[in-house]
């Protein structure tokens, strides 16, 4: 699997949108973190939407990396919103005891955009 083809960081005004592939390997998750942080610096972004609506597995490694990324984005002055977690993933992640740190969650990307528009006046 070629991680480069699976991960694109899209700039939307003051925020970034990243769509995570359905079954991301550890390498892709690490790449996501690096790409996001560099894109935030490059575009001076104030926020990040992680679209995980395709993701069908969220294990402790993924959760830890998302939580860390949220923290790193916060250190760079940005807010992270996790959008679109599937019901079976939410059930499993909770049973496994995972948490996503300080990230805000929304049902989908539309609602994530609403948060950035209404709460942070960024879009």
């Amino acid at each position, binding site marked *: 699997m070629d991680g480069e083809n699976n991960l694109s960081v899209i700039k939307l005004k003051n925020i970034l949108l990243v769509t995570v592939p359905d*079954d991301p390997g550890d390498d892709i998750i690490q790449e996501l973190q690096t790409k996001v942080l560099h894109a935030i610096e490059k575009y001076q972004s104030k926020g990040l939407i992680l679209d995980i609506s395709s993701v*069908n597995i969220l*294990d*402790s*490694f993924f959760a830890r990396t998302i939580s860390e990324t949220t923290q790193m984005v916060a250190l760079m002055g940005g807010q992270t919103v996790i959008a679109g977690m599937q019901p079976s993933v939410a059930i499993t*992640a909770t*049973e*496994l*005891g995972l948490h996503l740190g300080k990230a805000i969650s929304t049902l989908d990307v539309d609602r994530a955009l609403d948060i950035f528009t209404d709460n942070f006046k960024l879009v």
Partner: protein
Amino acid sequence: MAIEETGENPIKNEGDIVTCRKLIRNVATTAGFGMTDVTRIVTAVSELARNVYVHAGSDGVMRWQLLYQPGKIGIQLVFEDYGKGIPDIDQAIEAGFTTAGTMGMGLSGVKRLMDEMHIQSELGIGTTITVAKWGRAK
């Protein structure tokens, strides 16, 4: 045509974690497990395969087998490594225990996701973790 009843996949590198997940997702879905149970099983596979990869430092393997009981379908997964072994199994299963800088939810979490878990470990020889999940037959 019956589906395959048993198989195995090596765990030698990071990429094998994804390979094991895809394989078991396919097996569990075909066997008739519901979507949430498939997610539970695949998540357990991810945790245990990574465990082998991170802690064993040498070749490991995942073996799977479908189990049948009247009205029920089951899947058994065995993760075998030849690593340094677990000194204190009870401590390893405790929530929050970690030696690898992770959240420490691995083994305690897997125990919650699956119906059965058994750990056999010998210092210097290796570790075998066996888990099973049961569902209603189609």
